[in-house]
């Protein structure tokens, strides 16, 4: 599998713009790994096709979660081998990581909805914002009687509200 294309990646991006333009992209997955939503605002470099990209992102989160749980020094509970199936909510989880070029914030609801927001590396704590996005998802998607649960979200109203909200926070 190819992770990086031939082009050079700059070591770190310029300082964040005042606000409104620092969100790169968002993913929403359900427990079955279906990508319910993908939106991008600012993504100059693409190395994989969309489906592979979604799969890679989901796989990254899944593995990272079992790694963080495995490494947890505080939990006395019996831990299985790395990669053992976990019960939902079992073990600990991470909420963000930062590289020199971006920051990835992550939240997972007990119902298995995963929300991933990729922003400028200097964005602050986005945990509350992700919860807010979860609330938007509930109001605009889940409560829409004509939306089929588990299917990709095609809802203009949700998209516009989301765009607006992300512009406000990052």
């Amino acid at each position, binding site marked *: *599998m190819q992770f990086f294309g031939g082009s050079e990646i700059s070591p770190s991006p310029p300082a964040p713009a005042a606000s409104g333009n620092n969100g790169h992209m968002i993913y929403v997955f359900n*427990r*079955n*790994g279906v990508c319910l939503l993908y939106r991008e605002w600012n993504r100059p470099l693409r190395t994989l096709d969309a489906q592979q990209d979604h*799969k890679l992102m*989901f*796989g990254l989160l*899944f593995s990272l979660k079992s790694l963080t749980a495995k490494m947890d020094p505080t939990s006395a509970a019996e831990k299985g081998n790395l990669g053992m*199936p*976990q*019960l*939902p*909510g079992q073990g600990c989880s991470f909420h963000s990581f930062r590289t020199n070029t971006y920051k990835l914030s992550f939240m997972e*609801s*007990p*119902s*298995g*909805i995963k929300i991933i927001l990729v922003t400028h590396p200097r964005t602050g*704590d986005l*945990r*509350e914002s992700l*919860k807010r996005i*979860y*609330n938007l*998802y*509930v109001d605009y998607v*889940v*409560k829409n009687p004509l939306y089929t*649960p588990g299917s990709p979200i095609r809802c203009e109203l949700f998209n516009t509200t989301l765009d607006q909200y992300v512009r406000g926070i990052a």
Partner: protein
Amino acid sequence: MPPVAPRSGDAIFANVERVNAELFTLTYGAIVRQLLTDLEEVEEVNKQLDQMGYNIGIRLIDEFLAKSNVSRCNDFKETTDVIAKVGFKMFLGVTASVTNWDADGTCCSIVLEDNPLVDFVELPDNCQGLYYCNILSGVIRGALDMVSMKTEVTWLRDVLRGDDLFELQVKLLKHVPEEYPYKDDE
């Protein structure tokens, strides 16, 4: 940043938009009435109500989690407690209690004294087998399904059938572990 404390059922109930209780009760009644006309068999109506409840439950869970800030329950006891104290309060405006635990903590009863769905209702002779509130058992089953608990929910007592209370038995069949959903790992 300290985690936000879970909100109580009362606090959420006070904050959500509500509809007139009679409109709600009568709308539900109209649905059951229509199902009886369409399906004719009482057994079929029970099944259909349960299925409708299930479909509601798998959506309702997200609204419940988003509004209540409940993050994670340590065991099934806590789960049923949250359903009774927070869930029922938040969506129906009534509180339920949890009793009759079995020895290994996988089966209990949720008891409802007050149930807004059954105002105005009396079961006629030709509907004696009807579980009028079967939608509720479906909702609980659907919601718990989404948080990876397979359950069986059955009515033990029903005021409409001459009992003094509503009693729902919730039985935990199994916890479903989280697995990597993709088969081929290319």
